[in-house]
């Protein structure tokens, strides 16, 4: 089989599954689970090709260069695809148990989720500016109905706010695309860098609009206001997807575009500005996470903070920072997925997620708390987790470039993360008061508990297997060594 069939399959098969599920009109979780399994196999099958040749390109439609749409699987895309595929398996197993008895919600989940998976794959594989716009919209419009699965009455405010910001963000992005097309005459990321004339106002303005649009979609600090309610209010499986993958997809685009087509347009000052936004996000998000009274909001604000780390690549722009930022994306994705799934289990058992009334759950929810703790290790950045490797790389970069202020940010961020993770764990392990009221909820089935744990273990393992993965990633395309 030709290797370039694989990227095409990664987009089209999930779409096919989603559409068939929509037409069928009754939930088929098995189809969904087979799909995520096949998806993982396809991604794994991509690895040798990318490792040998550096990248696999598929031409859609067979048209010639400036016109055609290409799918590109390079190291960066492959790692994000791998993260998506691993999370997809865990989340699907979790969802199979979570929506077992709810016909309507299950049908909607199993329709939207394959479509979202296909959209995410399409986004990671895209090599075309306008294509990215459509996939961004696709991801958003699959994600918001999924948020509504928690009950439209409760989540409608959060969903509406999410939609408004997402729509504005993507139209600002589109305005930037229009300006860049006017200058370069092509939408292909690979051709854009060469085709753009040097430092015109239109080029710089286009690049800035593109970046601002993506920052809104990625919920970076001044634009984070829509995130906590949406991620905190969604069902656990959906929160995991949103926090680990959907906002990450936007952050990924920033890395992809900055180091590639926008490279001739960006300046060191812009890099420092983005880094400053990232640092603010880390400190503000962590502090907010520490102050929250509800578990899922703690985890949601933690996402605001953790996304900030990926921005620290931009001021430093060396290979170590590149690797650190991407690795942070992977580690955070796995750990955050585990945290949200575990939080969902706690919510299921208690019937609420108020931190102060959470004590005494250590025995019935031992496995879920194990997942929470292990994932917390990675979020805090303790060895030997994936989070540690990422932060170590970022620290190395900050020392290497002599930008000591990021070192301080990284250390403070780690401390604050430790504070909010341990706060949750301490409350969970406190002895219950004497007269424990009857628990209204149920002990989550093993499938739900273990799918969270598997993700958390993967987040730890990520710290051990870093060498081959980083080799696969390589260095930034346009950046300096």
């Amino acid at each position, binding site marked *: 089989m030709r290797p370039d069939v694989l990227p095409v399959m990664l987009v089209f098969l999930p779409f096919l599954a989603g559409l068939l599920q929509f037409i069928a009109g009754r939930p088929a979780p098995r189809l969904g689970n087979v799909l995520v399994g096949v998806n993982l196999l396809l991604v794994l099958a991509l690895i040798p090709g990318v490792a040998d040749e550096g990248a696999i390109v598929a031409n859609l439609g067979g048209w010639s260069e400036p*016109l055609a749409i290409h799918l590109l699987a390079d190291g960066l895309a492959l790692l994000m695809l791998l993260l998506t595929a691993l999370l997809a398996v865990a989340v699907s197993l979790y969802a199979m148990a979570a929506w077992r008895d709810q016909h309507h919600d299950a049908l909607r989940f199993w329709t939207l989720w394959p479509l979202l998976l296909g959209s995410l794959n399409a986004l990671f594989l895209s090599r075309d500016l*306008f294509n990215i*716009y*459509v996939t961004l*919209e696709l991801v*958003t*419009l699959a994600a*918001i109905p999924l948020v509504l699965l928690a009950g*439209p*009455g409760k989540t*409608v*405010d959060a*969903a*509406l706010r999410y*939609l*408004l910001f997402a*729509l*504005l963000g993507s*139209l*600002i992005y*589109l*305005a930037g*695309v*229009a*300006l860049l*097309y*006017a200058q370069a005459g092509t*939408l292909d990321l690979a051709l854009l860098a060469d085709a753009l004339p040097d430092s015109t106002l239109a080029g710089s303005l286009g690049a800035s609009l593109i970046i601002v649009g993506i920052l809104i979609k990625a919920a970076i600090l001044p634009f984070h206001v829509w995130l906590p309610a949406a991620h905190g209010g969604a069902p656990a499986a959906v929160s995991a997807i949103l926090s680990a993958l959907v906002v990450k997809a936007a952050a990924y685009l920033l890395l992809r575009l900055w180091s590639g087509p926008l490279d001739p347009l960006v300046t060191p000052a812009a890099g420092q500005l983005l880094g400053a936004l990232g640092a603010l996000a880390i400190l503000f998000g962590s502090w907010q996470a520490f102050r929250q009274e509800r578990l899922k909001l703690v985890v949601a604000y933690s996402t605001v903070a953790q996304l900030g780390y990926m921005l620290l690549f931009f001021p430093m722009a060396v290979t170590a920072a590149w690797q650190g930022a991407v690795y942070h994306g992977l580690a955070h994705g796995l750990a955050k997925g585990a945290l949200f799934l575990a939080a969902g289990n706690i919510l299921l058992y208690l019937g609420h997620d108020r931190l102060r009334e959470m004590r005494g759950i250590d025995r019935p929810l031992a496995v879920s708390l194990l997942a929470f703790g292990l994932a917390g290790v990675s979020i805090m950045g303790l060895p030997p987790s994936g989070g540690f490797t990422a932060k170590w790389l970022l620290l190395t970069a900050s020392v290497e470039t002599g930008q000591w202020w990021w070192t301080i940010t990284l250390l403070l961020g780690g401390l604050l993360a430790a504070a909010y993770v341990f706060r949750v764990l301490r409350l969970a392990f406190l002895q219950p008061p004497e007269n424990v009221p009857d628990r209204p909820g149920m002990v989550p089935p093993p499938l739900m508990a273990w799918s969270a744990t598997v993700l958390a273990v993967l987040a730890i393992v990520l710290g051990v297997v870093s060498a081959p993965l980083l080799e696969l990633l390589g260095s930034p395309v346009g950046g300096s060594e």
Partner: protein
Amino acid sequence: MTGIEPLAVAAAGLMGIGLYGFCLCRHAVRRLLSINLFGNGVFLALILIARRLPDGPDPVPHAMVLTGIVIAVSATAFGLALVRRQARTRGDDET
């Protein structure tokens, strides 16, 4: 080409006014309208850009506009359904 193209000013102005409305309006329908104003500005800009080709308008931006209109309208329709649902939920709460 010299001189100012009036419709280019209109495109830029629509984007500016749309952004202004998004920042200052509170009601969701008004914000949706503002977003669509911004979008209309972008579409107008794309159509102006398409005219730069010497032999006939450039079909690529035209296709982008057509795709963009459908996406914007379907997302806005979804937003309006959310607004109706929100109003209903609030109405139920008050009674």
